[in-house]
């Protein structure tokens, strides 16, 4: 079976005004197989976000080859990339990026609006409710983003990413705006989805968050400098329980 992500010497060069070229990514080769749960780590400026944008088909590489699910996306045009983003990839952002003044349900329905094969209104509703149920937010379907907590908003964003049943879930600093307990809850959602067979790649700079994944890639100066399997993987449920116990202990003492 082909890898979900296959990167061959991917480069990204930004041309600045003064004739100075910035090499954000300098030839990254990597593979991610179906069912993996990968964290890309690195300090800011290491090129991890640029690489993530390329993998998410939001941006195009300056050089190299990128096969997504066996399909070469390097030479696709804007519209074809939009279709790939719509059907093959679910993207989750640090800032949630939900449409304000639009209910959670409608936010989740949004990707289906741009689906080529158009779905019946009933089917759309059903799929959106299903996606919300996956992240345990079915009862908040009609709330607007400003009526939801950060964790809940991020779960709506995850439901939105899932609704078109993509092969790949990409998350750029998904816990960056969340407190530690909510972060672990979100990682719990990811672990559950990964257990169901969904491939997940996320960018983070928090070491303890990366420990919930199965494999860690570390980038520095546009290159992957380390690629290791996570030895002592954390389980979100256990961690949550421990956190709650600790909390209780503090209160008791």
């Amino acid at each position: 079976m082909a890898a979900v992500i296959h990167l061959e010497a991917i480069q990204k060069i930004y041309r600045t005004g003064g004739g100075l070229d910035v090499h954000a990514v300098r030839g990254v080769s990597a593979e991610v197989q179906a069912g993996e749960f990968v964290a890309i780590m690195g300090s800011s400026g290491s090129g991890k976000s640029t690489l993530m944008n390329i993998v998410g088909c939001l941006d195009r590489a300056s050089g190299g080859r990128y096969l997504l699910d066996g399909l070469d996306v390097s030479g696709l045009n804007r519209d074809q990339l939009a279709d790939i983003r719509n059907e093959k990839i679910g993207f989750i952002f640090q800032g949630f990026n939900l449409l304000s003044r639009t209910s959670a349900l409608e936010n989740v329905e949004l990707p289906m609006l741009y689906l080529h094969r158009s779905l019946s209104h009933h089917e759309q509703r059903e799929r959106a409710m299903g996606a919300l149920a996956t992240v345990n937010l079915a009862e908040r379907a009609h709330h607007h983003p400003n009526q939801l907590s950060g964790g809940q908003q991020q779960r709506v964003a995850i439901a939105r990413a899932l609704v078109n049943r993509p092969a790949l879930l990409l998350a750029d600093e998904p816990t960056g705006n969340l407190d530690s307990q909510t972060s672990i809850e979100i990682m719990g959602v990811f672990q559950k989805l990964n257990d169901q067979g969904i491939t997940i790649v996320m960018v983070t700079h928090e070491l303890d968050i990366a420990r919930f994944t199965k494999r860690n890639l570390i980038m520095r100066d546009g290159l992957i400098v380390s690629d290791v399997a996570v030895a002592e993987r954390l389980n979100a449920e256990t961690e949550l329980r421990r956190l709650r116990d600790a909390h209780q202990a503090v209160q008791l003492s």
Partner: protein
Amino acid sequence: MKRIFATLRIAARALRRNLMRTTLTMLGIIIGVGAVIGAVSLTNGAKSQIEAQIASMGQNVILVFSGSFSRGGVRSGWGGAGTLTIEDADAIRREIMGVTVISPESRTRAQIAAGNQNWNTQILGESPDYFDIRQWPIVSGSSFTEQDVRSANKVAVIGKTIADELFPGEDPIGQIVRVKNVPFIIVGMLSAKGLSVQGQDQDDLMVIPYTSAMKRVQRVTTLNSIMVQAAKPTLLAPAQQQIIELLRQRHRITPGKDDDFTVRNQQEIAEMATAQSKTMTVLLGAVAMVSLVVGGIGIMNIMLVSVTERTREIGIRMAIGARGGDILLQFLTEAVTLSVIGGLLGIAMGIGVSKLLSAQYAWPTLIPTQWVVYSFLFSAAVGISFGFYPARKASRLDPIDALRYE
């Protein structure tokens, strides 16, 4: 189809979100379209009234005016020089095929008096056929007769205004009215016609036999004009031609010399009268179109603001798979919704204003159906053309830049 509804719903929501701004932007289109409809229905109303007035001259009418004369460089108008005679009129009646009725005319203005009242009015010398040609019924009394014409009798048919001015509250029939001290007996009164488009009182006139007018009032031997009615519309043009030939012959005008008379048919008179209102329509229409274009610029302006404000939303939509075309369509739909709703409201306003004008000031208005359609289509076109640039700008945004936009 479903996608169109979804796009419309998004557009409606985006427009509702800034209701004040939406309304103000729409106002440009509302006023533009309202002005078009209002202006055109006013000029249309005036035009149709002029046409009705000309139709009231009678069907298939040809007017023969005697020529103008010039004395010391001052030229009189048509009917000024006495070149038409009663014999000319008789010859037309006798020799021109297809001519049914004819009324030699001798017109003047004079002071008239009855009892201790007096009034200045128009005195028309006509034949009894005049009332038939103009399809103007006599509501009380009767017309004068051919016998009255032959004898140049002192009888008169008066308009409603004269009855009101000289005989208030009395029956005018059988009363005496003096014209230049010649006493005329009133034998009939015409039905009231009211004001003309130009605001003239059409009932302010007195009709007497043309012979009486020539001999007893004006003391002239020539006619001002001859009113001729053809039996059928198709006979109008040949009859006109024959009249010209006959009169040139009778007046001994050698080839190459100008006519000393003028022949006009009703069609030509109608065209002259409506030419002015056509110019008005074009002018008012142009002014209204300009205001529509200004409204369109308002839409463009607000759409550009909207695109900038919603850059992040555009980025989100693109990130989850909206194509450039989807974004283009979304903003274009918004602009067109804005202009089309504005157009509909403008049509309602234009119709309302013209109805109000005709109800309040008795201005004749006529809602022009085709202009309603034109202005609706035009406002939609304004939305498309002025919405296109902002929409294209939105659709060309880079998803990453758009997502980072603060």
